[in-house]
């Protein structure tokens, strides 16, 4: 019996996760500690940052907001518990019910139009008692699972043509359009980005690729004419931020000032001036990064970006080591979800991208967002933990 051929750059079996301890077949012996630890660090930093961000509300009429970091801890605890549960179940079971999960997600999205309550002109929430949740958030992992299931069931080695992409496109388009109709362009865009990211690991027929790019090139400007005024305003404000500092550009402008004001070493914890003097609206939802960057400076911002970067690259590593196609696609999808959220949020608050309502993973306040991210981490953990267990997928390759 010869030794297996080691992948490039890996010299020992242990590094490959094939050391003696890894030879045991029990998934709980293969807990992905780097994944868990990095995610936990981000979550802790997020809560710590939220405490500072909302401390400005102490002693005001909105003093309740100063307490929300506690809620965030609860959400993280719930997310951790749910995540533990999700990662304990072999993801093959998830694969089996993938389309069912997808349909449930789409159904809850449709429910929004029946039961919705308005928040700032958009209906995105469903109330169940005193508890309200955002189906569009949960739709993201549902879509990932559905696309994974489709690609898992449809292995190919030759490039995919347009005809063979119809099913995944429809799978993405249904929730995408429903969400766009709410209207929540940011989340709809996220659906598209998840689709594109997942399809990036497949081989696409060259003609199809050119055709898709052409469609985007022509369809983009066409979409612009259908955009709502506030959506247009965000883009024009982005292109010319100085024109409207008091109005639409207010968020973007002051977020940028806060980040810049952090300079190399930051103002110090609880001392961010733009935040303390309340120039950062939504500092605990969509704009926590400027608070962090102002207080911890360039050094802190680099640490946080490195943590997100690690998480995303680690997800790709998990994908590359997944035992089957479903695991690989789910990992890529979850990695893409975390990546795009982090990239777009930071890009938006630093003035690289237009203002889109996009939460920063584990930093932004909100149960739906926290649960979605913890769910993704749990899926990654699930795939990572079972990379060695029986290759049931073998038969399907």
């Amino acid at each position, binding site marked *: *019996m010869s030794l*297996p051929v080691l992948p490039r750059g890996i010299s020992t079996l242990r590094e490959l996760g*094939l050391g003696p301890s890894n030879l045991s077949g029990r998934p709980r012996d293969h807990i992905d500690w780097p994944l868990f630890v990095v995610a936990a660090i981000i979550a802790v930093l997020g809560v710590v940052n939220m405490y500072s961000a909302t401390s*400005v509300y102490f002693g005001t009429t909105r003093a309740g907001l100063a307490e929300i970091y506690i809620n965030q801890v609860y959400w993280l605890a719930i997310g951790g518990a749910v995540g533990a549960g999700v990662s304990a179940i072999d993801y093959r079971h998830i694969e089996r019910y993938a389309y069912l999960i997808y349909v449930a997600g789409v159904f809850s999205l449709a429910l929004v139009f029946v039961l919705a309550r308005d928040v700032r002109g958009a209906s995105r929430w469903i109330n169940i008692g005193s508890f309200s949740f955002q189906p569009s958030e949960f739709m993201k992992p549902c879509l990932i699972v559905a696309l994974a299931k489709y690609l898992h069931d449809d*292995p*190919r*080695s030759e490039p995919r043509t347009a005809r063979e992409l119809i099913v995944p496109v429809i799978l993405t388009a249904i929730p995408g359009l429903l969400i766009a109709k709410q209207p929540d362009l940011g989340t709809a865009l996220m659906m598209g980005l998840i689709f594109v*990211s997942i399809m*990036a*690991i*497949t*081989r696409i027929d060259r003609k199809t690729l050119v055709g898709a790019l052409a469609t985007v090139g022509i369809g983009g400007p066409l979409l612009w004419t259908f955009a709502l005024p506030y959506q247009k305003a965000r883009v024009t404000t982005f292109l010319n931020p100085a024109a409207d500092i008091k109005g639409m550009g207010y968020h973007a402008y*002051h977020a*940028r*000032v*806060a*980040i*810049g*004001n*952090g*300079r*190399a070493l930051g103002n110090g914890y609880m*001392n961010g*001036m*733009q935040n*303390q*003097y*309340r*120039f950062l609206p939504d500092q605990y939802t969509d704009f926590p990064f400027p608070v962090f*960057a102002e207080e911890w400076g*360039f050094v802190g*911002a*680099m640490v946080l*970006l490195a943590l*997100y*970067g690690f998480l*995303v*690259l680690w997800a*790709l*590593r998990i*994908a*590359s*080591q*997944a*035992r*089957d*196609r479903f695991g*690989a696609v789910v990992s*890529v999808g979850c990695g893409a979800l975390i*990546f795009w959220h982090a*990239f777009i949020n*930071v*890009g938006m608050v*630093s*003035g*690289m991208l237009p203002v889109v309502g996009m939460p920063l993973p584990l930093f932004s306040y909100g149960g739906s967002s926290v649960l979605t991210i913890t769910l993704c981490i749990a899926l990654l953990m699930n795939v990572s933990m079972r990379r060695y267990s029986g*290759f049931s*997928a*073998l038969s399907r*390759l």
Partner: protein
Amino acid sequence: MSLLVPRPDVGEFRLRFRWLALIVVVLFLAVVGRMVHLQLMMGDEYAAIARENVVRKVTLATTRGIVRDRKGEVVAASRASYDMFVEPKRITALDDKGNPRMGDVWRRLVELASLGDEERQRYEQKILAIRGRGGARAEQQIVLMEDISRDIVAALMTHARELPGIHVVPVSVRYYPRGGVGAHMLGYMREVDADMLAELRKQGYAEGDRVGASGLERAWESYLRGTRGWEKVLVDARGARRPTREDILEDPKRVEPIPGRDLRLTVDARIQDAMVKAMQSELAGGAALIDVRTGRILGLVSKPTFDPNQLSGGFGKQTVREAFRKLFNDPLKPALDKTLSGAYPPGSTVKPFTALAALEKGLIDQRMSTVCRGFLSFGKRIFRCTQSHGPTSFHKAIAQSCNVYFYRLVSDYGLTMDMIAEVAMRFGLGQKTGLGINAESSGRVPTRAWMTRRNKGQFRIGFTVNAAIGQGATTATVMQLALAYAALANGGTLYQPQIVRSVETADGAVVQDLAPRVRRRVTLDSTYRQLIADALWGGVNEEGGTSSRARLAGLDAAGKTGTSQVSHRPTNSEELDNIWYFNRDHAWFTGYSPSKSPEVAICVLIEHGGSGGKHAAPVAFEILQAYHRIVEQDRQAEEKALGGRASP
């Protein structure tokens, strides 16, 4: 064996993970690049913007200087007044039909401020009208009550938490404890309007500031107003103060306001009171009491007066408007400063100067005499005398004020208008005295050239006849005559009148001590001066002297009465109804006391008072007596203080 089975990504997914990782790294590097740009390269600029966002310069109010009289009594100061502002939108509510009604806060306010029904309804109407119209004004703070009483202020401040939308704001208003006494001299304050602001903004004035409008308040504005200070404070995006990061403030953090300079006047409040009391039965006029040795004004009174407190805004805008309306509709012209701004025919008070002109030119000497039959016909006109004086000497002509004697100086002795004008002007008539407060009239001393020009090339000798007794075109102000007589009294020094003794800091240190200023030394032959002085003494003290009936026992004074004719053209119905009053003669008395070594000169004008001897002289004597009494009091008090210090 399972370990040897190729990974599932072999085939389709294979190398693509690396591409994805590359894209992720590149995009993250773009973000890193953005951070380098924002935080490392532009950091200082953004830090400056962040600092600018929170640092505000707030002005620190200064206090206007206090004005005190000669003895230190406060005659103008500042006090805090409290205005109540309300936000109509916050204290009203809409009923079911969308009509505004007063809210609960208002009921609480009515209770605390114990508003009467009528008052309450008026305010409610005002508030509901504003709320009904809606718009930005309904959300702004509007003034509801001005200068509310201390009790109400205390009640409202104690219960401030129950009164959202209601604000009590302190403002500084000028306060004149003596009310109308000396109001023309002190002046009043007014709020700067847009036109004035265009001019004054570069001197640091702002909307809502008050500025001296007349009198000393205006003339000494730059000394009194003080300089505003400022302080840097930290405010958040909502404008609330948050001092948490005071470490970012750069020096200087605060510039203290400089309070305005205090003024010490030459005027004595007690003398002012005595002057007001002496004139209390008269309707209109003016009086000035001047120290002949320095030209310093001891008392200055103009009647009728006004209350500068009402004009200066302390009691609210409504009061100001009403006070102004009253001020300008009164036919007795209370707005006019009758000691400085009003010029009147001086009548016989100029006779000493006419006589002096005749003596100096050598036209007559003291032995010249004539017989007065009560009139003198000259050309086609008859010039009247007050009575038939019979044989009249130089002394008697002045003491008993014989017009005929002066007519004859012109008709028979060759006294010309220019000779009279030269002497009158030498003593300061026809020129502004230079006191510097209020719009001063220069009066008028007619010359031949001027009269000719005014009468289209015709000059009649009758003009000179009139000028000799201070009638016709001649006019003078109370201040001018007082100073001219002061110059007669002190042997020929014509002073520039002085009202501010010194400029002091808020803690009483003298910044500037203002010395008396001599306008000029008047050529005055001591023999002639003595002749005139004797005659002026006679006018008061001799049998038949024009003011001898008003003489007060124990008062040593000399002076000249004047009764100047007026021909009044009524300008409105009120004046027409009271034409008997407006056609009455102006009554004058001007003189000095004591007659030997004089200390003070006085000039009293009673507008339309009738005869100088009957109406002006008693007032003047009462004032002079009060002056001597006050001087004596002060002397005794000083002696007592000195004695008290020496005895134990």
